[in-house]
Structures are given as structure tokens and as C-alpha cells.
């Protein structure tokens, strides 16, 4: 079954289908019910599934996420929304000290089946407190899963997988992708931790995730004009990330660039680069390179933000450096 629709609608459909399939799935967050979500990712769900399972909360991020943990420990599978990823800073105790640790510190007595949906990313000139990509914070915490779908099909299938997952998942949506159109396959296999080869190639590997996939595609198109065939690995899952797929690609191309929108320093790319360097050193024909945002808050002005965000130019330059 395949039909074209927007990324944001794929999110809504995944939520609706999950609620229809499992009565323990419920949604709550700021303006997710009556208003249908600030980005309309929950539009129509209140009408379809009723006010008990689709609830507007007060603006209380810490307690929204803490309540999700308590509900998950009491038989529900809550999906909560934090309106902008920047606002998870208000909910970090619930995510880091409660959700992530309950299973482990209670000796495996329980799981915490909950999903925290939240949009990250720039491109909307939303400024320093509404644009950050903070996924590395969560990837650093044992007990959490972190996923960042780049395509419409993945927005659906990875959200369904996240809701079915027994442990807490931080589900990161890039705001710039909400209007993206694509095909949906509701019957696609669903799983945790598998990357996707977005484009095969043999000269260099570009490892990426989220909206940066599209910069990587543009970079690969331009490199192809110069005869360079870049392979793109769309990670999809950041925790756990697919070592097998990344290592297989690097073992084939011997050159790798890791590209993401998040700040480069201490980021997801740093971990992957370190693992490649330690486990795949003999396969490398060039140093592992990273393309990420500079070590500064994301600025507001259109010109400043454009200069800040990693783009195809920087990915092309990095790939060429690995081939030099």
C-alpha cells in the first residue's frame, strides 16, 4: 500500500494507527489535542480517539514527561510531545533520571514504554532557543533510544516502531521536513537500530541522519558530476546506531564523512568517528572527517543562520578532502 503525503501527516497517521491498534497508547502534550499540535502533527486525533487518550496539558514540560514515565509504569504506552527540542531542557530529570533508569535501577522489574516526540533543527529562523539539535544529549544516556527519521516512509514506520518499543524513545523530527512529500508504506517492516543505504557508491561514504540527508544527496549529485560516487548511509537510529551498516560501507569505500546539523563538537559524529578510527583503522585511506554546525548558538538572522547550517558545499568539500 503506497500513497503520497507529507511528513507531518505521516506522523499523525502513525499515531492514529498505533492508537487504533493498541488501547494503551495515549497522547499528551501542549496543544496536541484541540489545536492539533503546533505543527499539526496530531491533527484530527482528538476527534478520532477521544479526549481521554488525546489530552492537552498545561505548559509544564517537566511534569509532562514525568507523567509519561508514571503512566508507562502503570500500564499505558504514552506518546508525549515537547513542542521544540530546546524545551526538553526543562524535562531532563524526567528523561535522564527517571525514564532512562527505571528499568535498570529497579532490577529489570519493569520497562518504560514511552515516546517523547520533539522537533529539532533550523531553517525557520526560529533563533537560539527554538532550533537546536540536541539528540547527542540523549544518545549519551544509557537506557534511552534515539531516532531521527529523514523520509516520509520512515516518519511513519519508525514512529510505529518507537511506540511498539519497550523502552523510552526520543523521537526527533526535523521541523524543516514537516512539509516534505513522499510515499508511505504502512506495511513496511518496523525495527530498531537499522540504517538505510540511501544511495550506493564506491568512492566515499557520507553518514548522516535527519534533514542533513538532503544536503548529502545534493552533495552526492555534485560529486557525481566529477566522477565521484558517494555512498549515503542514512542512520535513522542514533541510539543504537547501525555499526554494521556503517562499517560495511566504510570497508567498501575506505573514506568517510559524517554530516549532521547538530553542533560538531562532542556530537554524534564524534562517537562514530572514534569507533571507525578504533575498529576500522586498517580500512581507512584518509582521516575520518566531520561536517557539523560550528561551536556557537544557532543565530536568528536569515543570513547568519544560513551561514551556520551545514550544507552541501561543506559536505562536497569534506568528501573531496578525503579523496585528496
Amino acid at each position, binding site marked *: 500500500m503506497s500513497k503520497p503525503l507529507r511528513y507531518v501527516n505521516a506522523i499523525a497517521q502513525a499515531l492514529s494507527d498505533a492508537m487504533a491498534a493498541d488501547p494503551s497508547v495515549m497522547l499528551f502534550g501542549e496543544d496536541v489535542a484541540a489545536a492539533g499540535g503546533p505543527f499539526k502533527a496530531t491533527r484530527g486525533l482528538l476527534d478520532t480517539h477521544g479526549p481521554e487518550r488525546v489530552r492537552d496539558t*498545561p505548559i509544564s514540560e517537566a*511534569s509532562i514527561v514525568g507523567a509519561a514515565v508514571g503512566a508507562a509504569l502503570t500500564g499505558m504506552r504514552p506518546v508525549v510531545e515537547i513542542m521544540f527540542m530546546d524545551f526538553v531542557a526543562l524535562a531532563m530529570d524526567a528523561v535522564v533520571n527517571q525514564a532512562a533508569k527505571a528499568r535498570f535501577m529497579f*532490577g529489570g522489574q519493569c520497562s518504560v514504554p514511552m515516546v517523547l516526540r520533539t522537533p529539532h533543527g533550523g531553517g525557520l529562523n526560529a533563533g537560539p532557543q527554538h532550533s537546536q539539535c540536541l539528540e547527542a544529549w540523549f544518545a549519551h544516556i544509557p537506557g534511552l533510544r534515539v531516532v531521527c527519521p529523514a523520509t516520509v516512509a520512515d516518519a511513519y514506520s519508525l514512529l510505529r516502531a518507537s511506540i511498539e518499543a519497550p523502552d523510552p524513545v526520543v523521537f526527533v523530527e526535523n521541523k524543516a521536513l514537516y512539509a516534505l512529500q513522499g510515499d508511505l508504506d504502512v506495511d513496511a517492516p518496523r525495527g530498531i537500530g537499522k540504517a538505510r543505504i540511501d544511495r550506493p557508491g564506491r568512492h566515499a561514504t557520507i553518514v548522516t541522519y535527519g534533514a542533513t540527508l538532503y544536503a548529502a544527496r545534493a552533495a552526492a549529485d555534485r560529486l557525481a558530476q566529477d566522477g565521484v560516487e558517494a555512498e549515503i548511509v542514512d542512520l535513522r537510529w542514533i541510539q543504537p546506531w547501525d555499526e554494521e551498516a556503517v562499517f560495511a560501507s566504510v570497508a567498501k569505500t575506505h573514506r568517510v564523512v559524517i554530516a549532521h546539523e547538530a553542533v560538531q563538537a562532542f556530537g554524534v559524529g564524534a562517537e562514530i568517528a572514534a569507533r571507525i578510527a578504533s575498529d576500522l583503522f586498517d580500512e581507512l585511506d584518509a582521516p575520518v572527517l566531520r561536517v557539523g554546525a560550528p561551536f556557537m548558538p544557532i543565530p536568528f538572522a536569515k543570513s547568519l543562520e544560513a551561514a551556520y547550517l551545514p550544507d552541501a558545499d561543506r559536505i562536497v568539500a569534506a568528501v573531496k578532502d578525503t579523496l585528496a
Partner: protein
Amino acid sequence: MPSSAPRNDPFPPDRLLALHRTMQLIRATETTLSKLFADSEIPGFIHLSVGQEAVAAGVIGALAPQDTFATTHRGHGHVLARGVALDLFFKEIMGRAGGICGGRGGSMHVADLTLGVLGANGIVGAGLPLATGSALAHQTRRSGGVAVAFFGDGAMAEGALHECLNMAALWRLPMVFVCENNGWSEFSPTSRQFAATLDKLGAAFGIPHRQVDGNDLAAVAQAATEVVEAARSDGPRILECITTRWHGHFEGDPQRYRNADEIAGLPENDPLRRSAEALLAAGIEEQDLAALVASVDSDIAVALEAARADALPDFDAAFRDVYTPTTLTAGA
């Protein structure tokens, strides 16, 4: 039964005697823990609730099997009152393999999900949102359950309380906020920490507040029964229990910040002595109380012996429990 017992008394002496035994179990267990800690048989930090036993016994005694609660770093009493297996409790606090949490949580994280215990908590106020979410689940699932959030007076200054009072009131959640007000926010008097009062805070959100002498077992039990049933049918309630903390914030805390006279006077308001006197006045025999003490001591001795004999936890088993096994990791 003596004829002097008030009519319609919901807590006849035999019922109070059972709750008194719970208090004795908590007191004797924590006194044992205090000694074990001093003898370096317990690693880490422990926070004892000696002097506060009537709150745990009275409130937990008012709960139904389907009810849930989240507690605090000073949570031994609540978990013991709910009936956690005593040997598993000792094993956990002593860091043994057979502990209720496999030796991974310790004193600050004792939990028993089979009993609706959502865990003690190492973060002040963090149990409040957990209990709020648990109450939300009870309401959504129509389980008939009530969720209780235990918190200390120190947590009154935490934003989580204010957020959760609001959420519970908006949704009329089946939830009881139980404040164990012992007057001390860790190392500081709460009068220097919190500018409001809990009754005024409750009134701001339209949540009925009830204050009770937290060292009067019958008073706590009576109030808790009424408040829990009110929450079950009519939405959130606050029960503030005024009580006393005998030991330091953590075990080993010399409490130099407290007035010596205050500490010396604590036993005069001992909830155990008060309930023992009430039971004797109601016709319970001295020998029954002595037998109760001996029975509790015997249970503790057995549990402690089992804990000392238990193996140390396996590191690989702990590592494997960070995530739940799932076939999803093999898919897509």
C-alpha cells in the same frame, strides 16, 4: 473489646494493632540499618524515617491493591508498609544479587512494581510527576486505582509540586499528595525554604487540604482512609502529616544545625510509644505488644541473615538489563 471504644470507630484496636506492627517493623528495620551502616555493612547513602512511621503505616494501610505510589529518598517505611519481602529489601540495601532491584538501585530506589510501588527516588520532588502520570493511567484505564505521591516539606519548593497540583486539579485525577512535613528541608528549617503553606497552595488550585498529627497513628489512618476514598471518587486531595525526623538528613549526618533540646525532646512525640499507649488503653495486653516486638525482631534477623549470605550481583546481568529484550532490534 472494651465498651469505651467509640461507636462506629473504623479503627478498632485489632486494626490499629496491625498498623502498629507495621510501625514496629519500620522502626526496627531502620534501627538495624543504622547499625549496619555504622558497621560499614551498607555502602552509599541511606536516609532514615525514624520518627515518621505513623505516616507510612497509616497512609499505606488505607490503600487498595490496585493503588500505586511513588515515594522519596526517605522511602523505606512506605515500601515496608506495602509489604515488600523483607529479605529482598535487606538484600537490596546491602547490595546483594537477590535484592528487589538486583542490587542496582539501593536504598534510594527500592521499588516493587508487583505491589504498585513506583520506586523511592533520589531526586527531591521527582516522584510527584510519576504519581501524577500513574493517576492519569488509572483514570484513562478506569482501573479504579488511586495514585499517591509522597513528598517531604523540602519538595514544596520544587516546581514539580506546583505543576502536578495544577495538572491533577485540571484533570481531577484520582491522586493524593501526601506531605510528610518534618520541618527540615535536608539541612535547613523549612521555614527558611518555603514562603507559602501547603494549605494555601492547595487552595490556589482548588484541591482540598487536610492537616493531621502525623505522629498519631489512628489520626493518620482515619484521615488517609477518608482522603484516599475521596480522591478515588472526586479527584485530588492533599494530606499534610506533621511529623518528626529523628535522624539526620542522611545517616551519619551529625545534625549540628539542630538545637540539642529539639533532638532530646523528639521521643516525647514518638509515634510508636503513643500508639502503644493507645492500644494498652484500649485493652491490648502488654504481652501482646511484647510478642509483636519479638516477632518483628525475629523476621528481621531471618531477613538479615539471608542478605548477608546472598551473593554479590553479577555485572553482566546488570549490563544486560539496560534495555528490554525485543525482536524489534532484529527487524527492518
